[in-house]
């Protein structure tokens, strides 16, 4: 069992050429037939975890399609990218899903976007593209332009047929929810009251971000679209992207800029966790809890507005640094606000979590064992609630996190309540981190002096979003553009795990379980309930299920 970095790299060298692309990040180029072996070793033997699969059309650079499987090794504090090439005429690569079930969606996405076929994949169906998307059109291939996609393929007339209610959407209401925010579908198969199987149908919010970024935007415009991947934890995406480009171009970011980034990241984490608590209370019918947590959260939002000029979508980053400074007055104000928030939360939130209804509806519900969590490669608070200590801030430090003292809360029970506790602890960890950051912020510049980005270099940006690790792989391109940019949000890894958690649970607990991973589509709304015995299908809203028995 190799433990040191040196030993790991030696082992990797047996499989293919190894190259260091930047700090703590190595790329191993292997033949297609060895992909399965090396991935299995990285994920199951070396204690790393599978993070993302990136497809890429590199026919313009070297004439091949490429696949990158990214693994994070927490123990050794390094990331390893497994790189394979596929024949441009018939792109075929062996699938790693049979070994690492967590790679399922990633491979299907690469199939959707590039037409790369993964051999022995259990279910290589369409995942992301809209229902009326024509066959054999792969949007992220470089030989099809955004204009072609828009004007040839976007045909609103197909809408008319679909807009009529079908069996699946019996109720003429969209997949929307009053309090939660994005439309998503879960199909639950029930036997009486018990959920026996679940399926996810989603990606209503697929907006074609990668194509827009690769075709229209320049390197310094992408931070702004990256921020709009998610309106709740957008800044982590922004930072992850900037870091990826900075690593690729070997730009040294001033320390003050790093501190400012960390400060805003932690502010975002607090606001996101408080938001989640509010939503959870709302789902459990405790509206006063919702109101009171959001009341505290509003202070954080105001603070963000004072520091950045906007309540959300801070727009603070460019490649090489940050755009605004935090002066002494603002530091003082932030510290005061944090004290107030901490006091309020200790007073209110802890009491709310002790309420009987809240306890009885979260404890021992939605179990995810450590093994399942490893299999599906879940990240963030979900993993930490299942006993896996993983935190990018600790094990792959970025921004100013290397210089901070903090604990990573880990709970073993793997139920909804431990996810609640992990987030509860994290809020206070964040507050203590923020205090350290604000007190020790060094003087200096905000932007790196020399910001030039060479072409065709790879960079891997990691951040710990409120929901788990964010990972951005960037391949820089010509003319101040990026060639390939693949952001992966944490919910992408976490959402499949709800399907495991839901099995065998009571139908009424489904909403709390789905919300417990804090899905970035945040809301989880309509559920298609399929009765296995009777074969009937009907659409329900989570909220209704949460109240009662659907017989």
């Amino acid at each position, binding site marked *: 069992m190799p433990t040191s970095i040196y030993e790991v790299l030696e082992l990797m060298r047996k499989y293919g050429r190894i190259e260091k692309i930047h700090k703590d990040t190595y790329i191993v180029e292997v033949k297609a037939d060895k992909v399965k072996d090396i991935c299995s070793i990285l994920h199951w033997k070396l204690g790393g975890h599978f993070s993302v699969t990136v497809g890429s059309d590199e026919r313009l650079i070297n004439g091949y399609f490429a696949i990158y499987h990214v693994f994070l090794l927490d123990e050794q504090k390094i990331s390893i990218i497994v790189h394979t090439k596929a024949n441009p005429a018939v792109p075929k690569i062996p699938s790693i899903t049979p070994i690492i079930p967590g790679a399922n969606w990633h491979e299907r996405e690469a199939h959707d976007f590039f037409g790369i076929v993964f051999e022995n994949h259990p279910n290589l169906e369409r995942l992301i593209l809209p229902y009326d998307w024509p066959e054999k059109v792969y949007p992220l291939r470089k030989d099809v332009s955004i204009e072609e996609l828009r004007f040839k393929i976007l045909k609103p007339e197909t809408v008319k047929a679909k807009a009529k209610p079908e069996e699946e959407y019996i109720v003429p*209401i969209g997949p929307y929810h009053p309090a939660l925010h994005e439309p998503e579908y879960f199909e639950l198969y029930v036997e009486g009251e018990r959920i026996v199987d679940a399926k996810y149908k989603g990606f209503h919010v697929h907006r074609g971000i990668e194509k827009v970024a690769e075709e229209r935007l320049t390197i310094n415009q992408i931070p702004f679209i990256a921020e709009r991947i998610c309106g709740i934890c957008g800044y982590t995406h922004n930072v992850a992207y900037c870091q990826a480009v900075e690593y690729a171009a070997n730009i040294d970011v001033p320390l003050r800029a790093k501190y400012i980034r960390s400060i805003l990241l932690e502010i975002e984490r607090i606001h996101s966790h408080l938001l989640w608590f509010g939503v959870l209370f709302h789902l*459990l*019918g*405790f509206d006063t809890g919702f109101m009171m947590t959001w*009341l505290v959260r509003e202070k954080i939002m105001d603070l963000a507005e004072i520091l950045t000029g906007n309540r959300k979508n801070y727009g603070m980053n460019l490649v090489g640094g940050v755009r605004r400074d935090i002066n002494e007055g603002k530091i003082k104000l932030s510290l005061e606000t944090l004290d107030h928030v901490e006091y309020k939360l200790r007073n209110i939130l802890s009491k709310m979590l002790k309420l009987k209804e809240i306890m009885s*509806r979260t404890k021992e519900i939605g179990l995810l064992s450590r093994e399942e969590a490893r299999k599906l490669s879940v990240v963030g608070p979900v993993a930490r609630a299942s006993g896996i200590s993983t935190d990018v801030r600790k094990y792959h430090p970025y921004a100013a996190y290397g210089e901070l003292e903090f604990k990573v809360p880990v709970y073993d029970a793997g139920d909804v309540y431990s996810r609640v506790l992990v987030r509860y602890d994290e809020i206070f960890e964040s507050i203590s981190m923020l205090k350290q950051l604000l007190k020790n912020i060094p003087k200096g510049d905000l932007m790196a002096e020399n910001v030039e980005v060479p072409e065709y270099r790879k960079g891997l940006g990691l951040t710990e979003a409120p929901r788990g690790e964010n990972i951005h792989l960037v391949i820089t391109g010509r003319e101040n553009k990026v060639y390939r940019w693949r952001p992966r949000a944490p919910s992408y890894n976490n959402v499949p795990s709800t399907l495991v958690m839901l099995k065998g649970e009571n139908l009424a607990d489904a909403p709390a379980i789905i919300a417990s991973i804090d899905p970035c589509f945040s809301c989880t709304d309509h559920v298609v309930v399929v009765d296995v015995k009777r074969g009937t299908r009907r659409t329900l809203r989570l*909220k209704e299920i949460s109240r009662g028995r659907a017989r």
Partner: protein
Amino acid sequence: MIAQLLVLTNIVGLLLITPIIDGIERKIKARLQCRRGPPILQTWYDLLKLFRRPSIVTEEYSLPYIISPYIVFANIIFALALLPSITRVSLSFYGDIIVLTYLIASSSIFIAIGSISSGSVFATIGANREISIATLSKLLIALVLASFAILKGSLTLEKLFPIMPPYTISAILAIVLFAILAYIESYKLPFDIPEAEPEIIDGILVEYSGKSLGVLKYSMYLKRVLLFTMLIDLVLPRNLPPIISSLAYIVSLIFVSILFVTIETYFGRLRIDQALKFMKTLIPILLVVIVIAYFHI
């Protein structure tokens, strides 16, 4: 003739007051959540707006879907006429206690029938749930009313009020149990089911819109006031002078609604099986109350 007029005053007065009571509840709830809250007349504004909006019907509805809101409304109005409220006069006849039980139960059933006939799956599930709660809670209400009848030895509502004196343990217990049942039956948290909570209207009401939604919501507010009235009648002394008794009634109505909404604000929702379990534990207690009421303890 005067009695009829007074009963009419009761009903018209309650029709006017009820949305204001709901407005007060919303205001209090908002205050307890650190909000300013809507104006007290807000529920009236909502209802008036609903009455002026058209009703969209579903594609596959049948007759009960259209008429049941009005049947429910009529049911509740008739039930209100049976109880003394603003004026201490009511329609009174032998066995009206049974009629009251029937009216409360049938309003739930007609709501359920109406939403089942909307042809929407959503509403059907809501109706299922309504029935599963109603069967239990109506049984409990019938048992409580039975214990009152035994205590006073009469099947006429007039003769029941007020239940005390005699100050027996069974009388006090019965009143407390009725208060709990009124709380459950008026769909307060943690026993809330979809249609009562003003912020979240779905379930049974999902397919109703405009006028019929307004009528249904109005009936639900009235039903809540009906239960409160019953509770007040059980304790309010009978022989007060007319104006003072009306005032006492209105004050205690507001008091009860404020009390209930304050309790509600600090509860989360129980899962329905937990709620049903709680209600089932009430059955043996009720039976004990009936037995000791029989022996006038």
